[in-house]
Every structure is written in C-alpha cells, then in structure tokens.
C-alpha cells in the first residue's frame, strides 16, 4: 500500500516537473541552443552505435526464427513481411528506448545527481538562473528529438539485418525482400513507431532528470539513484508501450 502511495507521489512529482519544463520550453521561445545541441550530441549521436548494434542483431535473430518457424508451412519466403512489421511497429522503438534509455537516462541521473549533492543545482538558482531551464529542458527536448531519429535508424538497420539472414538462409534476393517489406508496411506503421519513440524520449529524459534532482546522500546516493533510473526507465518504457500501442491502434 505504502509502495503504491510512494509511486503515486513520484508520478505526481514527475508531472509537476514536466509542467515546469514545458512552461520553460514554450515561454522562452526555445531552450538555450548550445545546451540543446550538446545534449542532442550526447544523447543522440553518442547512442547511435548501441541502437545500430541492437537493431542489426535483433532483426537478424527474428529473421532466423521466423524463417525456421514458417518453413513447415512453406512460407519462409514471407519472412521479410513478418520481421519488418515486428521491427517497425514494436522492436525498433521499444528496444532502442530501453537500451538508449539505460545509457542516456543513467547518464542524466549521474550528472544531475552529482551536481545536486555538491550543491551545484542550488548554485544555479542562487546565481540567478533556473535549473529547469539549464538542466532539464535541454535534456527533455534533446531526447524528444533524437529518440525518433534513432528509432528510424534502428528500423532500417533491423530490416537490413533481417535481409542478410533471409538472403543467405532462405535464398531470396535483396530486391524480393525489399519489395515484400514495402508491400507490407504502410506509412502508419512507421508513424506509430516514431510517435511512440517521441514519448519514450520524453519519459527517458524526465525520469533521468527527476531522479537526479532528488538524489541525496553523497556519492552513494548517486550510485543508488543511477540504478533506480535504469530500472524505472525500463519499466516505464515497457508499460507505456502497452498503453500507447492500445491507444494508437484504436485510431
């Protein structure tokens, strides 16, 4: 019971932090561009390699499994259809968010948490600036922008990984595979995935910043907070994925 109350308390506090963040974003025309580009570089460009590796091997493994599973029905030629749908709708956005979220969110928490325990966050306020504007808003905006881009990259690479497997294991040509994928996917599939990625980007940044801003207890506290963030982001992404999928498919 107390855990549920605590969770509700956190959700309330994250909502308030989000409100303050978006007020900053919309009231000051745009967040500080140099801070934003630094965060886009760190969160987005710095994460492309894990996004690509994850997608490449996930696409490949899915292709192996589907090719094998469809073979008894003589349908392994259609592996591309199944795999591309799975990647673009679900695995691209979700796996990218979980992995990039772990990396980026933990980084946000560690950095802001360390600043918090050394009073640097207080110093920002004391020197006449707003920690939300300096720390939270650029990170939230950067993740909202970069997560869909990373997801798009992951979608392509995932399908490419699958194509390599299907070409070698099933023996279809690249053209055949690509035609199948283009036949199967509609623009809505891609947009659903990217819309989800936008939400995941927001969740990753806001949770990472929130836990960082509430870090207490010196370096030990920073370590604890960082672990909490990784768990919280993974759960938030997976649970919200279910809700967002339901929501988007109802339209």
């Amino acid at each position, binding site marked *: 019971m107390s855990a549920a109350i605590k969770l509700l308390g956190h959700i309330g506090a994250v909502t308030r932090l989000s409100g303050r963040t978006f007020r900053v974003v919309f009231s000051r025309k745009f967040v500080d561009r140099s801070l934003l580009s630094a965060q886009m570089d760190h969160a987005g460009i710095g994460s492309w390699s894990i996004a690509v590796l994850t997608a490449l091997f996930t696409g490949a493994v899915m292709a192996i499994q589907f090719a094998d599973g469809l073979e008894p029905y003589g349908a392994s030629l259609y592996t591309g259809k199944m795999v591309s749908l799975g990647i673009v709708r679900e695995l691209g956005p979700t796996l990218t968010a979980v992995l990039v979220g772990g990396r980026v969110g933990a980084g946000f928490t560690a950095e802001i948490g360390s600043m918090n325990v*050394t009073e*640097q966050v*207080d110093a920002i306020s004391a*020197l006449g600036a707003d920690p939300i504007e300096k720390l939270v808003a650029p990170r939230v905006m950067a993740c909202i922008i970069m997560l869909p881009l990373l997801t798009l990259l992951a979608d392509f690479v995932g399908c490419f990984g699958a194509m390599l497997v299907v070409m070698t294991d099933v023996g279809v040509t690249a053209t055949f595979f690509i035609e199948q994928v283009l036949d199967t996917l509609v623009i809505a599939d891609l947009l659903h995935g990217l819309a989800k990625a936008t939400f995941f980007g927001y969740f990753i940044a806001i949770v990472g910043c929130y836990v960082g801003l509430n870090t207490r207890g010196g370096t030990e506290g920073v370590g604890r907070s960082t672990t909490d963030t990784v768990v919280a982001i993974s759960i938030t992404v997976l649970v919200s994925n279910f809700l967002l999928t339901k929501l988007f498919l109802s339209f």
Partner: protein
Amino acid sequence: MPDETIQPAPPEVVIQFKDVRKAFGPNVIYDPLNLTVHRGETLTVIGGSGKGKSVMLKMLIRLLQADSGSITAFGEEVTTMPEAKLLGLRRRIAMLFQGAALFDSLTVAQNIKYPLVEHKWGTREQMDQRVEEVLDMVGMPGIQHLKPSELSGGMKKRVGLARAIAIQPDVILYDEPTTGLDPINVRRINGLILRLQRRLNVTSIVVTHDMDSCFTVTDRIAFLYDRRMDWTGTKEEALATDFGPLREFVQGGRGTLEAEGTED
C-alpha cells in the same frame, strides 16, 4: 542571562527572520527562528554540525521554503515573493557554498561569468574585465582557463567567493567558508572575508562552527541552540557569557556538540 543583548551594529535592518519554522519530516530545524541582520555588519551564526545552520541561508534566498513565519530582505517578504522578483533578490544576496559548488564542466572564467550572464551585467569585454578584477581580489590572478578539477579545496573556495562577489551583491552568505581547509587557507579566507567587508562594505552572514574563524571576522554572533537562535551578542559578550551551552561551545568543549539540544 538576557535573551537579547545591546546591538552595537547600525540600526538599519536589511534581513529579518520572524517566527520562522522549518522541519524536514520529523526533523525539526527551527522552532522558531527569530533573527535580525543590520546593514554593513558581519553576523556569524554558530552552533553544532548538522543542526541546520545552512538552512537559514538557503531559506533567505529561497532555495528552501520556510514552513511558516516571515523572512524579509530589504523590506520585502521573501517567502511569498514571485519567481520573477527572486532574480532581483538573488542579485543582491550572493552565497558562497560549503564546497564552493563550482560547475565542473565550466572553466574558472565561465564560472565567474555565470551570474554576470544571467543578470545581463554588461558586454563581453566588461565581463572579462570583471573576472580579472575579482580573481585579483581573491588573490588568484591568471587562472581563468583552469577547470575546477584542477584546483585545490582552498582555491575552489576562493574562486567560489570571486563568483559570489562578481555581481557586486549587497549581502554575502558564507556557508562554512573555512571547513575542511588547512590553517593557511583558513587564515587566507578569513582575511578575504574581512577585506571584502571593508572594501565593499557588504553585509555578511557567516555560518560556521570554527570559533577562530568566527572571532576573526565577526561583529556579532548568533548562537543556534535547541532549534532557536535566541542568543545574539558581540564577541566580548560571547566570551563573557554565563549561558552554559554557549560558554562550552566558545571554549571549544567538543562534548557540547554531541550534548547540544539535550541540555536545558
């Protein structure tokens, strides 16, 4: 033992805490806090570690919100001040944090310029010149390009002080300015506080449990005891006091720190 002794300081009140209460969950810090600070004086707040002396500094610039009571600075109520006005307050009241709280990712020059940029203080050239001036003032010229990680504890404190005075505040809050420093740096920081006081004629509130530091820099002492700050007086009055907990504290009886708050 009178609660309030005669104030030799100038009569103009710049800061006043009135019936301020503050608690963190079950941990009551002030119950209540009453304190007045006059223009141009250096007031030192002493008391045991972990009793919340820094909390009053943070409430004064609203990094923390008081639970109840009134805090006024320059005649304006701080506890209910709108966000937009807080910027002006924080321009007039600067704070030196305990660990200096320099931004690790910025150079010394960028750290000192931070408040100048936020308060739109002047042109780039004027800011560069101001950085040079304040670094000279704290006796550390030519270190603009260094990062905080390249500085020692004492140097960080002095850069922190340079950053605090850059914007020419009316009041400087010092949170444990000499804690964790070697004796040479302690003397240096104390000297700086005194010099700045004379040169800039600022009002200072120094929170410390270092009695040597307290006696070196202070005009008036406030003693935090049993969640109140009822005793205030001059150095001489503190030395001659017959108020037991304060006498023990002043004489450096370390047992006082542990026993504080449990005695009558």
